[in-house]
């Protein structure tokens, strides 16, 4: 996000100055610019912005903790863009191992060559590395990152040279916690991060998000869609439904479908309801939707233009 956006959010001016100084200190190479993310959504929330900027300016790694749809990845993208750094995203599914992160040997032209992985390149080029769902990683996979994430800031690849991490480099990890089905993160890894606990998205930022994306939406409709999401969030927290329906991207996608002319219930079915394959759950989700928007709710009922 632009620094003007941060000023509008009311972020502390010293921190904004800190970002400016960082950008001057670590200019970005032309060939790396294409990796600077362009977030689709801005992240709203002054306190979270300030916490995150403070930690990153101090050279710390950041761990964003929160349930689904709290904007963890949106914030990570926003941060990389604000600092003007290329970003590498590593999704920690269970199959991720050290080789997939750091690099692996390949055989080319009769020779074994090292092919660097995303974490290696990020450390080398001074990027922002995003470790998505870090608590899903196997402990043995993460152990190789310990030296990278603590004061040593080095990676030793057996058989190759030791890499010193570029001083501009920062790592941002995300993890889902607090909902059923999440795992604990091991203490050694946790101690290497400054942690921001992110609350489920609240009414006000969600409204702003929808308003930013759909400026022509009628207030009444906007309120209804916000409430649908908040009600589903609550239902999910109470374990009445699984978190498949708690899909902010799905809601936004549905609204785009409505903008293109599709009737609201059908659009929400595609974006939200149909994502649940449970025998009974879709009816519970449909009830929530019906308790906020009338049948045959169409584009003209939703948008001004």
């Amino acid at each position, binding site marked *: 996000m632009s620094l003007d956006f941060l000023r509008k959010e009311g972020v502390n001016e010293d921190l904004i100055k800190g970002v400016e100084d960082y950008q001057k200190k670590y200019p970005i190479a032309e060939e790396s610019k294409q990796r600077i993310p362009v977030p689709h959504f801005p992240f709203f929330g002054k306190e979270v912005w300030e916490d995150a900027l403070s930690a990153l300016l101090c050279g710390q790694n950041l761990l964003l903790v929160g349930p689904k749809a709290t904007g963890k990845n949106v914030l990570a993208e926003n941060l990389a863009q604000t600092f003007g750094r290329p970003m590498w995203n590593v999704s920690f599914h269970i*199959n991720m191992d050290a080789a997939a992160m750091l690099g692996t040997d*390949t055989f080319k032209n009769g020779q074994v060559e090292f092919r660097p992985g995303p974490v290696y390149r990020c450390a080398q080029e001074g990027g922002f590395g995003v470790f998505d769902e870090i608590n899903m990683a196997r402990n043995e996979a993460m152990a190789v990152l310990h030296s990278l994430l603590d004061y040593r800031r080095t990676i030793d690849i057996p058989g190759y040279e030791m890499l010193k991490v570029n001083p501009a480099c920062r790592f941002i990890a995300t993890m889902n916690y607090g909902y059923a089905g999440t795992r604990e993160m091991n203490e050694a890894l946790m101690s290497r991060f400054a942690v921001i606990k992110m609350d489920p998205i609240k009414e006000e930022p969600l409204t702003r998000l929808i308003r930013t994306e759909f400026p022509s939406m009628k207030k009444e409709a906007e309120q209804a869609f916000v409430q649908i999401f908040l009600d589903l969030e609550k239902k999910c927290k109470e374990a009445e439904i699984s978190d498949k329906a708690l899909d902010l991207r799905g809601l936004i996608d549905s609204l785009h479908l409505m903008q293109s002319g599709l009737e609201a219930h059908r659009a929400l079915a595609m974006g939200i309801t149909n994502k649940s394959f449970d025998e009974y759950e879709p009816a519970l989700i449909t*009830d929530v939707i019906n308790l906020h928007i009338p049948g045959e709710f169409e584009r003209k009922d939703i948008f001004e233009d």
Partner: protein
Amino acid sequence: MAKRKYDYKRRRALNIVWDVSGDYRCDPDFLSFTPEHHEPNLYLNAIIGLTYKYYDMKLLKQLFDELATSSMADLFSDLLWLGMEGVVYQKELPHRPVLAYLRRQQALNYFNGPLSIRHGVAQEMQAARWHEVLGEKPKLFDPWAKGLYQGLTFDPNWTTQQICDHFRALTKKYFVSRFLVRESLEKVIIGKNLGKFLSFLVPQFKKLNESDLNFQVRKRDADDVIAGKEAHDGLMALLTGETAVKNYQYIVTCFGSSIYSSSQMLDIERTYCTGPHEGCHLHFTRGRLGSKGATGEASRWLVNAAKQRARNLNYYKENSEAYRKSIARLVAQLRTALQQTYMKLPVPAKTGELVPSLIWRGLYLDDERVFYGKEMQYTPDFTVDIMLDGSASRGEYQRVIAAQAYVIAEALRQCGIPYQIYSFCTIRGYTVMTVYQTYREKKKSLSVFNYCTTGWNRDGLALRGARQLMGDLSSSKKILMMLTDASPNDDRPLRDSGNILRTHEYKDARAIADTAAEAASLRRDGVRIIGLINDEISGGLAEAEKIFGKDLVRVKKIDKMAEGVGKALCHQISTF
């Protein structure tokens, strides 16, 4: 299936109430279903939820309870709900514009619905309301009806108390007051049959107790603790006179025949009933229900066991919402942990770990697959055994333990993890292992509700019995989850391994040490053991820790059980 469907409809109706009230703890006395298909009525359940949102339900419940004593209970409760519909609609509409649409749909559905329900005062009033909603005249001609209808328009500014007072006055004015009627006029003017007839006029709002699937919390009956202490006392009385043959017959009659042949049992006892358990017996059974052919004490035990099954099931149904959530949470946790059980299989690949013996292929055959990559394969190569302490000391908590075991079993079933459940108790020298479900069975473990306590608990021998039931310990990884109070106790002595003539009582520290030794022996053979302790046990967990070490879960509340059990199971799964 019908029950399951009904449960689901009720759950859906409850969810509508929770959606609009925002309070997932509320347990409404009223839910609304459509008259023809008995589907949850979206609008009327929303009205119930909104009443929870805006009004003091304690006061309203008092009023409903008061009305319930009248012979026109359903009529009055319908009228009160109609009044509430009008007032909560006005309050909520500015925040929820869709309500206008839903109300209109409700009105249309009412007139499109079955004619058969549209009789009586409550329906007349309701019809008037829906006519108005559709922009028509209320079609009330009689001044009495007009007046009553007018009286059902509550002021949104009234408090709950004011609404209650107003409604009491309204019923007094327009109906012969129940206070006047009850003892005298009721029998003449509104006799019981007329009252019943009025109640029969199919109210839209159904009372909670619409079927036996809804249960009020009942006080524990005096004979709640069956088998347990009674059988225990009976045992003490019988010990002196009963022969070994009679003891065995008693065990078979009460618990069912052995799942093993006589020769197999002989081998098993030679293996396991040794050392400290010399002279004791094991009995493995699938259990038995029904008292056909049994007499005397055995017959009483079987009858009580059948009653206990009903009590266990009732308890589960009463708390089904909480347990269903526990299952859902546990399933989610287990599924995450299961991802850890993907195994890596080496396959030739273009990247990965270099295999020198394959390099020639790269040089001469231009095959770049000179590395070993890793292919992930899902192999749930472990099983879970759930062993319930079925001794008399657990008598008070039988229903809770059965429900907890069912929750764990159901979560395992939904995750496709092979499991088996059994309980153990010790009586007349036999440690009886009652198997409710085996690894091979895939159905829901409803038989665990047969769980019924009696006798002593010789935990050390029970762990040996579990070893037998687990089969070959080298064929797959095993997790044994033991629901227990960690207080082993038996009337048969514990043999001293150093001196076969010397015996000790099987209780306290010696029994704990024996159980801990058996648990350690299983651990040495690769079995992971988790102790699940209900919060009801007195004192600390020091004794339990001697048996289970850190693999101990103390369940304090139902809603926390999944978290504790899930964490313990996931830890074991992920560290295999």
